[in-house]
């Protein structure tokens, strides 16, 4: 891994956000079409999307480091990248603490340790404030709906589960092995969630048919939270946490 | 009665049958003979209505064949052809009962009646296949299969039989037996038969009339005695033959004269 790389490519929007958040945005020479935040990120050269990055364009950008969210993204090109001395840095957080760690590591890698530390402290304080506020409140059971049909949800290894816990809730699928999974319709209904949370991109919210008779639907406790906050394990995950806590415990905010 | 008037069949631009007239009259066996590629099988398929004609017309009882529903034609005209390769297991009885299809009523989900079963049993007996009813078609020898195909054609109770080389896989005894059966149908039940064969002697013996086909045209039509002459056969088959009378039946007997032998 080169010390203090000057040319960086990111292959996931959360990593792009981290790079900007630690003040290293000027080092970014390439990112993906999914990377739309902050606004400057849109103007960086695009190397395809997260699912199918284009190796030729990546190499043409002569990066020293590529930040990826899963190793499989560039697995087939390991040899080509090694030959050119391009380092690949994988960060794949599963909870908020993991996100903080990613921020600090990226900061250290790009020579922005101090900014990263300051950022993490701020984020940690905001998260702590949320947790403190909801602490006296009774825990709300939550079903996190990734897609309504077929029904997908988040499991034990997803940061969503951690976020729900911190927001004063308990994911009914918290103990299910895995990160994202196809989930049984009837098990979802039988878990009697008091609230349903889903990520939205501004479109109409669609509750899974199986959950129509759940307590959450009957009480109208369906919450859509900006998908960019929930699906990108970066600094804005804390925004997601705050919105989630507000949804679950409106009385304390 | 099935009549072909001046029919022609074309495959793309190639003329396979050109201006042939033929009628299958009750009580008559008509043999069609001719060299390979003369258009015999094409003629048979045309007679059955399978091919569209480039010219002429085919009449069933004086009305155009095409104006009849297939089901009606299936009850009147039966075909024995080279059977297609079987890819599914089917018993001999099931196979022969296929000949009763045209008699089935649409409303009854196509189940065979007692009469269908009786007819099938009768034709199995006639074709000496009664022991084979429960066997699979694929288990039969070539000759046994050929008889099953004939049995299916007979099961249709059609008055007009079109047989395309029905004796090809049969031994001598079964060849004779099969043609006797066809002959008997024509004599007794006023059925008509058109038989394509390569065996000129069998044709001479069993047919009332013979048509010689060459390059899609009828080279000669008439009683065996009239048309199975050395001159006509030489013209059609381009070989020398010896024609004499069969010592027992008196029918014309044709023996090829092998040119190669003359050197001995």
């Amino acid at each position, binding site marked *: 891994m080169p010390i203090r790389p000057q040319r960086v490519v990111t292959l996931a929007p959360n990593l792009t956000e981290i790079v900007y958040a630690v003040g290293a945005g000027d080092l970014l020479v390439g990112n993906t079409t999914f990377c739309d935040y902050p606004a400057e990120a849109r103007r960086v050269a695009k190397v395809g999307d997260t*699912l199918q990055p284009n190796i030729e364009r990546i190499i043409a950008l002569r990066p020293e480091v590529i930040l990826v969210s899963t190793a499989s993204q560039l697995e087939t090109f390991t040899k080509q990248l090694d030959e050119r001395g391009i380092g690949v840095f994988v960060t794949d957080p599963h909870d908020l603490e993991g996100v903080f760690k990613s921020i600090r590591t990226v900061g250290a890698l790009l020579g922005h340790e101090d900014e990263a530390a300051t950022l993490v402290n701020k984020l940690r304080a905001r998260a702590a404030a949320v947790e403190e506020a909801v602490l006296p409140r009774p825990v709300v059971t939550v079903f996190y709906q990734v*897609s*309504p*049909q*077929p*029904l*997908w949800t988040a499991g034990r290894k997803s940061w969503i589960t951690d976020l729900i816990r911190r927001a004063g809730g308990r994911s009914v699928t918290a103990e299910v*092995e*895995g990160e*994202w*999974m*196809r*989930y*049984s*319709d*009837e*098990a979802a*209904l*039988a878990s*009697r969630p008091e609230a349903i949370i889903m*990520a939205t*991109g501004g479109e109409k919210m669609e509750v899974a048919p*199986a959950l*129509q*008779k759940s307590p959450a639907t009957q009480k109208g406790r369906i919450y859509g939270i900006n998908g960019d906050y929930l699906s990108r394990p970066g600094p804005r995950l804390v925004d997601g946490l705050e919105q989630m806590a507000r949804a679950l415990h409106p009385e304390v905010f | 009665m099935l009549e072909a008037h001046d029919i022609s069949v074309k495959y793309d631009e190639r003329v396979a049958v050109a201006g042939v007239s033929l009628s299958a009259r009750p009580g008559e066996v008509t043999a069609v003979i001719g060299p390979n590629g003369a258009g015999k099988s094409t003629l048979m398929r045309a007679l059955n209505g*399978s091919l569209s004609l480039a010219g002429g017309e085919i009449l069933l009882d004086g009305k155009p064949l095409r104006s009849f529903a*297939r*089901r009606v034609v*299936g009850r009147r005209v039966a*075909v024995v*052809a080279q059977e*297609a390769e079987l*890819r*599914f*297991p089917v*018993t*001999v*009885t*099931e*196979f022969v009962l296929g000949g009763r*299809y*045209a008699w*089935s009523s*649409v409303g009854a*989900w*196509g*189940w*065979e*009646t*007692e*009469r269908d*079963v*009786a007819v099938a*049993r009768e034709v*199995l007996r006639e074709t000496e296949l*009664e022991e*084979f*009813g*429960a066997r699979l078609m694929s288990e039969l020898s070539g000759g046994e299969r050929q008889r099953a195909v004939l049995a*299916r054609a007979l099961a249709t109770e059609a008055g007009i039989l079109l047989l395309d080389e029905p004796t090809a896989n049969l031994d001598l005894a079964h060849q004779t037996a099969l043609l006797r059966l066809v002959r008997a149908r024509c004599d007794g039940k006023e059925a008509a038969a058109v038989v394509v064969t390569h065996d000129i002697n069998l044709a001479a013996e069993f047919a009332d009339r013979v048509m010689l086909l060459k390059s899609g045209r009828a080279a000669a039509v008439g009683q065996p005695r009239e048309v199975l002459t050395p001159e006509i056969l030489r013209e059609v088959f381009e070989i020398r033959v010896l024609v004499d009378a069969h010592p027992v039946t008196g029918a014309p007997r044709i023996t090829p004269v092998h040119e190669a032998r003359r050197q001995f």
Partner: protein
Amino acid sequence: MKTMTIDEGAGMSRGARSTLRRTVFVCLALGAALLLFILAASVIGAERLPAASSLCALFTGGGASCGLTPEQGAILFDIRLPRILLAASVGASLACAGAGYQALLRNPLAEPYLLGISNGAAVGTMVALVFFGAGEEGSEWVRPVMAFAGALASTFLVYRLARGRTGASPEKLILAGVIVTTFLSSAIVFITTLMDATRIRAFTFWLLGDLSGASSKLLAVAIVAAVIGTIVLALNARSLNLLMLGERDAFDLGVEVGRVRLTVFLAASLLVGSSVAAAGSVGYVGLVVPHLVRLSLGGDNRTVVPAAALAGALFVVVADTAARTVIAPRELPVGAITALIGAPLFVLLLRRG
């Protein structure tokens, strides 16, 4: 007229009336088994329901009087039962369509999934969803209609590609199926790129066959199509028996080949289209079930078609019960289970040639 007695010795043991009697018997037995399995499947699931109360609720049509909680009632009637019914109609449709394609194409290996016909229906469904907004209220009907059109178009394509002079040879047919399948797969990939990321994940699952949560309208369409398609194929079964021996033979014996072929194509495409629209591509059902039925009951389509419909329903009900319970509360795609059973059998069939 003489009275016929049908007995082994006379070589008519597989004669007509015994076939009819046996078909009725087999269908009654399979129907009873299907009912039994549907009942059994309704008390098995990711969520434990009290068996006695569930059965009581199923027979009385209400949960509360039998001691089920409202949730348990909803699980039984809104989630589990519709899914089981969908499994049954999808299984019946695919098995029946398989039997139809096999007879028509004269090929025991013909199968909606392997021939790319399921893919055709899937492309139709996706086009309906992406371009015609078939997910929206009021336009759900576009989905099965487009699936039907897709199935029909791909059936026609495979048939034209594979047809030789004496009907499609096994090799040519499978080859045509591979070509159509891969072509349509790339069409599917192309359309998925037009979808957003979370929908893609759901879709990949659906493509492998997913019986959960089809809307009541799609379920109704699937059931009605299964019944109509099966009846139409059964009514043409005797013609199919002859077509199975060759189109020329069938024509000679009085079959209106063109009309029967069109009818069977339409009915089979209706069956495949309606099940794919509701449940995605559940593979191998159309291969495994008719084959086993033919193996145990002979090749007469008047028996094979109705028996395959019932056995197919049974097969998918069992497979889906496994799909929703083996790793509960997570789920497997039912298509993965049917393929797990079907693919080895397919290899076996190919080897036996």
